[in-house]
């Protein structure tokens, strides 16, 4: 059966989504259990696939039994195995978290559809990761996008629908741009298979069609993962969605779109093209620092905790693009670890925000007074994820920044070092504010919420948060684990197939 794993990892959530919907006509209770089980199975399959790819290299699966490039191919290699494992893990954690949260914040009557759409979102994301066919990538991109738009609109605040609509319009522009890019490539090569494109393109690198296609890919995926000047939709979408959804959007959806761009950059095109033919690195060298600084500074200015987290995502995306632009293995390793990193930290932080909102309905940072004593587990997890976000040693956040800094020096661009330091400092400022309110201010005699005692969230919400925080520490101390996988993937990307 293990030879069919690449397709099964996508089919499991798909079938379970259908099952939830079918079962939901009669029985509404089963939805959460099925969703958790499905994401767990997908995670188990991903781990197995990662192990297989690490042991045996590239795994190819021919859908319909047709040889590529005539049929569609699924490919699991170091990079896709690595990202697959991260995304399915986070999806599992968020699914477990959702039980009580969704019941309260979304409502029983919409629960069935919520979980069905959640699993379809996961189907789309996993499909995007394993596919080796560029048009298939577009199809799964649209599955994930549509599900994402609807999930944002579930948010309780009325602005959520408008946020969802804006997300839809900009997301669709991004998707259509990607479609245009695919069309341009198909026009001059006649193929849609990524490996085949890689073989055919080098002779055409200076063709205006191929150059234009690349520009459309960068802008299209850039819109999807909120590359700096294209980030406007992100703030309202991530801050007004239900926290479980914000978490999956920040931890998984952004990351998979970054992954898709990396795929296009390194598998469809080659390092030779992106670093020598087009001025992509030069453009990213301008965009990334602005994104890092602007994201951090704007995060400091926020009073709403979810908006603060949303702004910080923009800065973190800046780090990833900086690593991509530096064009050496160390920096690329840093970028890939940062994908893991940000998935854990931001996924965890949004879930923690969800816990606080679930228990207290507090969005305002200054009202978190004394929360450290009332919700000790939640705030401890927050502190760990926050420290990791700052990049304190012994947390996973430190590892990626360390690699990025090494990569910066290796590329001879030392002037980015102060940037990394300053932005870490700024990050410290906005996280410290929360920690300070939570631990060093006495709760002013329950004045925040009269007549209600604040306690920890239900256990099923605390467990995923605890596990995520634990992983932040484990990967920070046993740094060789993420390092090993990321380095292999980076080597593989830069060295070619």
């Amino acid at each position, binding site marked *: 059966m293990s030879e069919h794993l690449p397709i099964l990892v996508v089919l499991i959530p*798909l079938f379970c989504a259908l099952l939830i*919907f079918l079962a939901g006509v009669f029985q509404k209770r089963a939805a959460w259990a099925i969703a958790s089980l499905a994401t767990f199975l997908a995670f188990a399959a991903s781990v197995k696939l990662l192990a297989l790819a690490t042991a045996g290299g590239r795994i190819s699966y021919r*859908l*319909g039994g*047709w040889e590529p*490039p*005539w*049929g*569609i191919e699924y490919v699991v290699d170091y990079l896709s195995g690595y990202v697959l494992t991260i995304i399915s893990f986070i999806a599992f954690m968020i699914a477990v978290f959702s039980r009580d949260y969704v019941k309260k914040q979304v409502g029983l*009557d*919409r629960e069935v*559809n*919520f979980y*069905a*759409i959640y699993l*379809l979102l996961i*189907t789309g994301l996993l*499909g995007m990761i394993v596919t080796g066919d560029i*048009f*298939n990538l577009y*199809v*799964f991109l*649209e*599955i994930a996008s*549509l*599900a994402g*738009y*609807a999930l944002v*609109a*579930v948010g309780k605040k009325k602005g959520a629908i408008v946020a969802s609509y804006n997300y839809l319009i900009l997301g669709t522009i991004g998707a259509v741009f990607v479609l*245009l890019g695919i069309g*341009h490539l*198909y*026009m*001059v*090569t*006649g*193929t*849609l298979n990524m490996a085949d494109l890689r073989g*055919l393109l080098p002779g055409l690198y200076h*063709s*205006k*069609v191929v*150059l*234009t*296609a690349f*520009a459309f890919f960068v802008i299209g995926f850039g819109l999807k993962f909120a590359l700096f000047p294209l980030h406007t939709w992100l703030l309202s979408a991530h801050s007004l969605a239900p926290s479980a959804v914000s978490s999956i959007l920040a931890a998984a959806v952004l990351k998979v779109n970054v992954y898709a761009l990396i795929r296009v950059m390194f598998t469809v095109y080659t390092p030779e093209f992106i670093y020598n033919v087009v001025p992509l690195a030069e453009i990213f060298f301008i965009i990334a620092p602005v994104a890092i600084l602007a994201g951090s500074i704007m995060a400091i200015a926020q009073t709403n905790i979810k908006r603060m987290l949303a702004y910080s995502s923009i800065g973190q995306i800046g780090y990833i693009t900086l690593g991509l632009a530096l064009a050496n293995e160390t920096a690329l390793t840093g970028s890939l670890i940062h994908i893991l990193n940000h998935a854990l930290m931001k996924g965890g932080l949004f879930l923690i925000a969800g816990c606080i909102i679930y228990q207290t309905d507090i969005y305002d940072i200054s009202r978190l007074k004394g929360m450290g004593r009332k919700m000790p587990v939640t705030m401890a997890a927050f502190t760990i994820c926050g420290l990791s976000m700052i990049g304190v040693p012994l947390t996973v956040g430190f590892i990626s920044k360390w690699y990025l800094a090494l990569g910066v020096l290796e590329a001879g661009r030392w002037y980015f070092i102060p940037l990394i330091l300053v932005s870490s400092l700024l990050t410290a400022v906005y996280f410290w504010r929360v920690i300070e309110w939570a631990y060093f201010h006495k709760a002013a005699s329950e004045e925040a919420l009269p007549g209600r005692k604040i306690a920890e969230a239900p256990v099923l919400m605390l467990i995923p948060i605890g596990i995520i925080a634990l992983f932040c520490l484990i990967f920070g101390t046993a740094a060789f684990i993420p390092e090993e996988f990321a380095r292999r993937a980076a080597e593989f990307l830069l060295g070619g197939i």
Partner: protein
Amino acid sequence: MIDFFLLFFLVISAIFAVTTRDILSSVIVLGSYSLVMAVLWTRFNSVDVAFTEAAVGAGITTFLLIAALSRTLRIEEEPEIRESVFPLFQRLKNLLPLFVVLATGAVLVYSTLDMPSFGDPKAPANLHVAPYYIEKSVPETGVVNFVTAILASYRGYDTLGEVTVIFTAGICVILLIRRRKR
């Protein structure tokens, strides 16, 4: 020559659909736009796509738009005149979409310079993967409509994705606007 007129009609109707303030007529013009598009595609030998566009673009999309209009507003609201603190900045901001659109258009026109000419049988797209389907689909799948052969068999997985997309859209709409009863 007919193609030219059809394309010209498309441009005119697109401009009309975008500029008119009565959204209902805009929707109807969009329907005829889709229909003319279908005619054009028939002339380009893509009968399956033309069929679909006639059914979906001119049919379903128009239905959905009119259904949505009946529950919202038919006439586009006048833009609100608001005092701006920085009038110059506001004017620049209003020009931004136009600039973005023109820049994108310029890039696209630039790329056409290296494209194979329209209708060139020797274009790379028609030489690499495509001939295999035409040669092999009957002996391998037993289907004489090549489009169906690829859609259902060679790229059947894309079609599974496509059905998943429409299914997703269906439950999304249920999630968003189904009336809660009881």
